[in-house]
């Protein structure tokens, strides 16, 4: 039973990671790449760690795995957010087929303040 | 004999440094701690030497772990003598710093770092473990970096870049050598290495390892062609710092070479020949360099290089005679070079320049002071019967008997050039009339110094001058100690037995 669980969890996790890796190579712009990978990998890692927890089965390992998963789930979206916003105001363009860019012109170029106003600039491209 | 006393010179410096770090905002207290601490340090070191003389080699197994499993600290006569000389020089530098180091530098940790440097030096002299030697080297390197750059003046920074890069390179080579040695012998204790390296059948690999050590230590001791960092940096920091560097740091490299090449690596004719050639070229290069410099401190820097050659001779000529001469020379050199850089600091203080073409009139203004300064200057030359003269007898003898004509000629060349260079310094700095003295930015007449400042400048120079005079007039005693050291180094059996009592028993 445990073995099957390990097999299932690890396979699923590995596939998610592989998928994220492929997506990371394939996706046309940075935002999409971040978007694809952050969670897929996070999920993948969670599954991998879960299989380890199943394997060892001890209370301390399980709690440790839970702690790691918690950390990863806490930090990786924050990291994605940081990289994403930095990419935006260093001027990395969106993929040419992108439909909207509501952020355009909202960053003050010198102070990096982000405004919340709904200007006309948000029109579709 | 086992004794905790072995580690006390190291720990004491640590304690001083920690106490000073706690009094970070109180430079006055730091100054007092430094001087009084170093006075006690001299007593401790003397005690250690006495004990070693009375009881033979002392050891201290850190953590109570028997060698070779733990780190063992060993004090044979060589270590104890070097610790004592370091402590005396340290006391002098500590006194000299009081006036020579501006308070701004003291507010940024000058004193604790200096004491950690001394701790590092003592640790390096006392350790019996090759990797532990490496970590002491690192403590010395990092503290010397910091002392070199503290204040961040432009020339200091420029010098530091080179000093830093090449010294780190040296450490890395040293570390690589340790890795290889561990891979071959599986141990780090030097006495144990002595036994195990001897048993390695692949002598070729042992030789390669020895070469790695040679280059690593060679950079530290500034031998040809590895010395570049020294003339690029030693003239840049304040005099008190340069004094520690000039007196002690290169000698540490020589110490390490002497230790490793007498204990761990056995005679290898190729390395011996190489060492003789390197020693000769080091002497020549240093001498030629000293001849053309115009900055007093650069002159002294090149003389350091030149005289390192004298000590390296002993590594090429593996005889007790040569080692005796080298060790004697080392003892003298530490004291005198430390003193010389302090002298340069005093000269700078009253003349506002290091440049030989602008220095001058010192004799005219300060005849008595000049006489005092003449002692280290002419001791360095080795005008008999001053301290630099005595070791040369053994060195020349060893050079002629075992080293061949090349090294003998180099030694003679170095001797003559040193005489010329110092005579030139005397003529240009002391005799030549000074020009435009009061117009210089840092200029101040000696009589305008406060009494405290005068004492703080003069005492350390006088102290070390007195020590070098003692070395000179008790040359036979120093010689006897050097002979004892040489015999201990050349016959490491006793060392090994003391460090590894069980193993040696097994072997017999």
């Amino acid at each position, binding site marked *: 039973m445990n073995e099957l669980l390990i097999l299932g969890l690890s396979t699923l996790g590995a596939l998610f990671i592989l998928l994220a890796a492929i997506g990371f190579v394939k996706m046309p712009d940075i935002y999409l790449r971040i978007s694809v990978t952050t969670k897929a990998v996070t999920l993948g890692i969670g599954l991998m760690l879960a299989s380890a927890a199943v394997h060892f089965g001890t209370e301390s390992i399980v709690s440790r795995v839970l702690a790691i998963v918690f950390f990863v789930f806490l930090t990786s979206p924050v990291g994605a957010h940081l990289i994403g916003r930095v990419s935006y105001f260093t001027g990395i363009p969106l993929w040419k087929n992108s439909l909207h860019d509501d952020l355009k012109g909202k960053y003050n170029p010198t102070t990096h303040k982000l405004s919340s106003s709904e200007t006309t600039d948000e029109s579709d491209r | 004999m086992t004794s905790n006393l072995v580690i006390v010179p190291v720990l004491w410096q640590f304690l001083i440094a920690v106490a000073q770090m706690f009094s970070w905002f109180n430079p006055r207290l730091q100054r007092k701690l430094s001087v009084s601490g170093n006075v006690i340090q001299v007593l401790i070191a003397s005690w250690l030497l006495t004990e070693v003389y009375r009881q033979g080699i002392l050891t201290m197994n850190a953590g109570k772990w028997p060698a070779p499993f733990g780190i063992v600290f060993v004090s044979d006569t060589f270590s104890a003598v070097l610790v004592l000389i370091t402590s005396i020089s340290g006391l002098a530098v500590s006194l000299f710093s009081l006036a020579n180091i501006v308070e701004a530098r003291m507010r*940024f940790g000058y004193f604790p770092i200096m004491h950690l440097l001394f701790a590092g030096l003592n640790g390096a002299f006392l350790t019996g473990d090759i990797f532990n030697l490496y970590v002491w080297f690192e*403590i010395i390197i*990092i503290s010397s970096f910091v002392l070199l750059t*503290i*204040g961040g*003046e432009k020339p200091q920074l420029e010098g530091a870049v080179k000093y830093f890069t090449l010294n780190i390179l040296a450490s890395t080579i040293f570390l690589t050598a340790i890795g290889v040695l561990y891979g071959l012998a*599986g141990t780090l204790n030097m006495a144990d290495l002595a036994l195990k390296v001897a048993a390695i059948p692949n002598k070729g690999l042992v030789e*390669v390892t020895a070469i790695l050590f040679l280059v690593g230590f060679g950079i530290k001791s500034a031998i040809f*062609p590895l010395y570049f960092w020294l003339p690029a940096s030693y003239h840049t920091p304040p005099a008190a710092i340069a004094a520690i560097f000039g007196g002690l740091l290169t000698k540490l490299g020589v110490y390490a070479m002497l230790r490793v090449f007498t204990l761990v690596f056995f005679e290898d004719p190729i390395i011996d020949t190489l060492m003789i050639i390197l020693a000769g070229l080091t002497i020549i290069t240093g001498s030629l360099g000293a001849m053309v410099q115009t900055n007093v401190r650069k002159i002294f820097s090149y003389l350091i290089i030149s005289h390192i050659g004298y000590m390296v001779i002993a590594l090429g000529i593996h005889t007790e005679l040569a080692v005796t001469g080298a060790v004697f020379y080392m003892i003298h050199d530490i004291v005198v070079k430390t003193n010389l850089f302090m002298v340069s600091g005093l000269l700078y203080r009253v003349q506002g320049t290091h440049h030989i073409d602008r220095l001058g009139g010192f004799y005219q203004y300060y005849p008595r002071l000049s006489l005092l300064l003449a002692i280290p200057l002419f001791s360095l030359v080795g*005008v008999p019967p001053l301290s630099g003269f005595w070791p040369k007898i053994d060195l020349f003898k060893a050079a002629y008997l075992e080293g061949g004509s090349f090294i003998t000629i180099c030694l003679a060349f170095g001797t003559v050039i040193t005489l010329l260079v110092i005579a030139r310094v005397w003529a240009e700095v002391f005799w030549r009339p000074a020009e435009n003295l009061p117009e210089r930015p840092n200029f101040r007449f000696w009589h305008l110094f406060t009494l405290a400042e005068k004492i703080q400048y003069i005492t350390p120079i006088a102290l070390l001058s007195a020590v070098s005079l003692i070395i000179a007039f008790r040359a036979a005693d120093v010689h006897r100690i050097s002979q004892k050291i040489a015999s201990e180094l050349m016959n490491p059996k006793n060392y090994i037995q003391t460090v590894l009592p069980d193993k040696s028993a097994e072997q017999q």
Partner: protein
Amino acid sequence: MPLETGFGNYMMLIAVLLGGMLSLFLVIFKDYLRDGFSAFFFLVPLAVFTYFAVFFGSEVPALGLVSWQQGMGVHFEWRVDGLSRMFALLISGIGTLVFAYSHYYLKGHPEKFRFFGFLSLFMTAMLGLVVSDNLIMLFMFWELTSVSSFFLIGFHYEDRESRKAALRALTITGLGGVGLLIAAVLISTVTGSFSFQALLDQRETVLASQAGRIAFWLFILAAFTKSAQFPFHFWLPGAMKAPTPVSTYLHSATMVKAGVFLLLKLYPIYSALPVWKPLLMTVGGVSMVYSAAQALFFTDMKSILAYTTLSALGILVFLTGIGGNEGLVAAAAFILVHALYKAALFLVTGIVDHEAHTRDVTALHGLRHVMPGVAVAGAVAALSHGGVPLTFGFIGKELMYESALHAETSPVPIAAAFITGLLLFAAGFWVGFRPFFSGREASHTLKHPVSLWLQLPVYVLTAGTLIFGIWPAGAEQMVHALVEAAGRDTIKVHLELWHGFNTVFFLSLATIAGGIVLYSRLVPGQSIALKVEKLSYSSVAIYEKFLSVTKWLSRWYTDILQNGYLRWYVMTIMVFLLTLVGYSFYHGVHIYIDFKKISEVTLYEAVILLLMIFSIFYILLAKSRLAAVAAMGVLGISISLMFVLYSAPDLAMTQFSIDTLTVILFVLVLYKLPRYINISSNVVKIRDAVISLLFGLMITVLCLEVINEPVNREISEFYAENSYLLAKGKNVVNVILVDFRGADTMVEITVLTIAALGVFGLMKLRLKDNEKTWE
């Protein structure tokens, strides 16, 4: 020979060191002494003179030893025989006169006591030198004479020429000094000690040994440089920058004769060498003729005397070279002769200079009117200089001619001696006669009569010249003792005024006649001297040229190595390492790989290593700094993973956390930098790449070779067994860090602390202008 013990020994030590003690006294108390105090100083050499005159008869050489550096074979080993006694008496005797003379000569001079300090130090050095019977002791005092001479020549240090002359003198004599030291060491390798007596006893062994023969040449170097023999002679005329009493004492009567002294002392050992005679005769001969001729080109009294001194030193070496009874007797007599007349002439010159403020012979005349006594003394000294009968100089010249005549079948030696005598005659008259007796009127008037302090020493010396000239037997005993000491032979020396009408007598007459003609015909002029000096092949010019070429070469050599380029330094060091290791590999290591000891490669290991390799190359080629830093991050992860795979969890953790911190550091520092530079040319890059590749290859091969070797796991087994049982920890690495090898960790955290303090100081400390060390 009786060996002195106890009190006698210490008496000798005190006698030698008395001058030094006076010197020390002056250093300490000079500021508290009144000018007139120096009137008593002459008592010091006088006491020494008395000591040597009274306590050492010529019959018995006396030996003694005060042990000093026990174990190094260096003792105050002394020996007073005829040779050293004559020198000791000269040193202390002339010293007495010079001390007395200087008291008045330097009256009111602000540096008078410094002067006396060096002068008395010199006396100690010279006395020590002549009584030493220990080679190292001899060397020590020898060097001390050079050093005190350096300080005395540089007495007028504010004068550039004085400093230059002092340096030049020290260079040449220092060179010889090193020769002497090495010679002493070489001798000791044969005889086993530094004792001169041992050298004498084992002279056959020494002569037969290589060391002994090399030592000979080094001794010769020492003697020739000290005694200013051609081509090392040029330092002596420059030394005349020193005050006149110094010239009298050091550079004429005593110190310069130290070389001759050494030759005489070595005579019993080395005169057996076939090269001895031709070498000394040639060098001495050339020196005496060449310098005597040069003396006539000058108008400065001191310069003339300097060159005649050089010539006299040449004569002494020449005579020592001839050797045998005749040569030695002549040499011994001439030492005394020369000391008496030359010291007198120097002192006379000093008086003239002191009173008339010039020493130019062309500007001086008729001084007999203002200083009659001095004039007479000068004339007597000049006569002795010229070898005129009834002066001691005549005896000296006779003996010289005689030994030159008998030295060789060839006429060259006697011709050289004759020419020298002729030239010296004229030169002596220029100095001792012409300023006083030419012209009707005195060229200068005096405000005061010449002080007796100045006159008396001159009279003593001229009296000596006359007494020994008329009664040569008075000097016989001293000369005899010297010859006996040097020749180790008991012969009877007989000095006589009248030898009959022989060749030598006629040569003497011819010398006087020719000398008078020469003196009356030649007009003193500086022009020739200047021309000679300008010629680039004069010794000074060659020396200066040599110096400047040496300096240029040194500069070139130093600059090539220390050129300021860090990468050149790195490259040199690495190429040096590569060469050595390469050579060692080539001759000592058999390169092979034992595949049994190599583990298999799995895919994931390979990929991780591939990641490492790619990131390394990426770092090498990265165009942007930040990308390089990011690649360092990748490298760090790969290394961490490798550590995980190979069972080093602590390492993996540490490596990773450190890498993270390093990234943060870089990030904090890098963002204000200019563009990442990439300036090297392709050629340079290829060169560097080749070196780097070889270096990497060396490391790889080294690793593989070491892996082949058997493993010794004694230490790690101990840790594995005892980590828990004794050290109570299960993570062996951590137990090593905090317990087994805790001392390493203690140091390691200290390193970190210092680094942090350094960073803090480096970034925060801003020195004010007045706190800076650099101009």
